[in-house]
């Protein structure tokens, strides 16, 4: 378990000082994956460096399993770093060492005997599924394989906390998915506490149990992923959803932007809404997916009904929230793509 208590990091002194992290508080339990997201410059990298103790916080503390690590003297701080495994962006492997030798690095630093190193590295390399690549050099590994080496290295000293600092950034979507699956598997197998720092919302939806949004050094919103995704009033929930383009509605129809707003939206809701309103419902664009077994997402509909109150009411019946005219509550989004002639099947982006 890891907790941040009033964690603050300030660079510089006096009038020129810049507060990069401003009294952050959160707690991540064993077996939980906590994602921290936010725009560039929000303080994500600094947060990562405070969590893995490469930087000392200006005030506040990082508490791991009940022990305040951030205030330790330098010598013990180095030992404390071993309790937190870090997976860095693009793995950062030593180019002149093989995959095995890279994984062995933390064990060598600790002074483990060569025999034990060999046994532990063999175990780790199998766990991340890289057996045949054990003696390959980094230039012979793909991005995903290199990142698996980085994960194995982070786990070498059996940490209870795993920090992933933009660990999937720069990887292609398929590789990202496989790395995410590996991390989830390891979390379950090793009961790891995972802090996953990223700017990629797609990855957050794949991996996180809980999410916090960091903006200008502060946590502006936090909550369980499913709760955020099914809460139309949550800016973070909205930010987590992909925004797709959509086709224009037929003449006479109103464009509705609909979001899943509860955990029990039925799978056939479009048909049901259409039946209840007794008008056809055109799907103009949508992005829907299951997160932790719950349907989430948003859709843009063309509904040939002038009674906006009724449409809104019917949508609410199925756990959805809709706004007419394709308006979105939180700022810019997909603009209508070129109009589709009446009778034609609307072009769709994103699978329903």
């Amino acid at each position, binding site marked *: 378990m890891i907790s941040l208590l009033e964690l603050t990091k300030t660079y510089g002194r006096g009038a020129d000082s810049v507060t990069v992290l401003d009294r952050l508080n959160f707690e991540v339990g064993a077996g939980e994956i906590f994602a921290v997201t936010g725009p560039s410059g929000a303080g994500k990298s600094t947060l990562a460096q405070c969590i893995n103790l490469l930087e000392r916080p200006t005030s506040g503390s990082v508490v791991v399993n009940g022990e305040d690590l951030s205030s330790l003297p330098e010598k013990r701080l180095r030992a404390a770093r*071993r309790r937190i495994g870090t997976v*860095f962006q693009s793995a950062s492997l030593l180019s*002149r060492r093989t995959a095995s030798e890279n994984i062995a*690095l933390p064990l060598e630093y600790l002074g483990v005997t060569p025999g034990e190193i060999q046994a532990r590295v063999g175990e780790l390399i199998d766990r991340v599924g890289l057996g045949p690549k054990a003696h390959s050099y980094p230039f012979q590994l793909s991005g995903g394989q290199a990142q698996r080496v980085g994960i194995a290295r982070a786990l070498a000293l059996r940490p209870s906390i795993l920090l992933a600092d933009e660990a999937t950034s720069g990887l292609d979507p398929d590789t990202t998915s496989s790395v995410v699956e590996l991390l989830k598997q390891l979390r379950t197998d090793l009961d790891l506490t995972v802090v996953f720092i990223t700017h990629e919302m797609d990855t957050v939806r794949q991996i996180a149990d809980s999410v916090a949004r960091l903006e200008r050094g502060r946590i502006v919103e936090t909550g369980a992923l499913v709760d955020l995704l099914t809460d139309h009033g949550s800016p973070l929930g909205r930010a987590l959803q992909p925004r797709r383009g959509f086709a224009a509605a037929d003449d006479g129809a109103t464009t509705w932007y609909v979001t899943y707003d509860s955990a029990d939206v039925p799978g056939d809701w479009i048909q049901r809404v259409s039946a209840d309103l007794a008008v056809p419902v055109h799907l103009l664009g949508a992005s829907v997916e299951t997160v932790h077994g719950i349907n989430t997402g948003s859709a843009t509909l063309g509904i040939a009904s002038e009674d906006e109150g009724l449409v809104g009411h019917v949508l609410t019946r199925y756990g959805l929230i809709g706004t007419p005219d394709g308006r979105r509550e939180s700022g810019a989004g997909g603009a209508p793509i070129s109009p589709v002639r009446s009778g034609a099947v609307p072009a769709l982006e994103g699978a329903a």
Partner: protein
Amino acid sequence: MSAVNVSSGVGGLIYVPRADVPVAELPALLLPAYGETVLMVGIVMAVVLVIGTPLGVLLHNAAPGGLFERPALHAVLGWIISVGRSLPFLILMASIVPFTRFITGTNIGIAAAVVPMSLAGIAFFTRIVENALRSVPPSIVRVARASGGSNLQIMRSAQFGEAVPAVLGGLTIQVIAMIEYSAIAGTIGAGGIGYVAVTYGYQRFDNTVMLATILILVATVAFVQVAGDRLVRWVTPQKRLQRA
């Protein structure tokens, strides 16, 4: 090839009959000199490696962003090295004669040449090591720190370990520069192939000897360069394994 040469000596203007050294006698003249050059450069390189390597690592890590930032130390050290590097070797050699004599008790011969060559070489190599370490991505050092490495461990395995090819490439340049310095040191009677080139080739207009020393130096430098390139290739997995 014989001529009469005008030379000025104590007794005033005298004529000295001069003949080039016969080719058959070249080995007897050049081999011992070559041995002296190798010895001189060898001693200097040993001193340079032992002192220059840690100095380069120290300089790099005392700099802002290094493992142990010491801006004052970095500034002083950097300044001293820059002064050493900015003097042409001939001038450095001449200007530290009292120091050389203090260390070795003489100001001619191999021992005397080794002192200024080492000083110039250390300044040179310190910069080479510093530059090589600078090319190691900072993320590698972060990884090593997060892996629980001590500063010494990080400097050895992460910084220096990654910089080995660059350091060896620099070392090749350094050895060649030291061969050149040894020739310059020849002018103060340091011995070696440079001394032969100066006394026979230059002062006595012995073209045979001059040509022979040039050939030897070109061959030596070419050999050092090829060996250095091979070595760099060998310590760079990507180059080593992709050759096959």
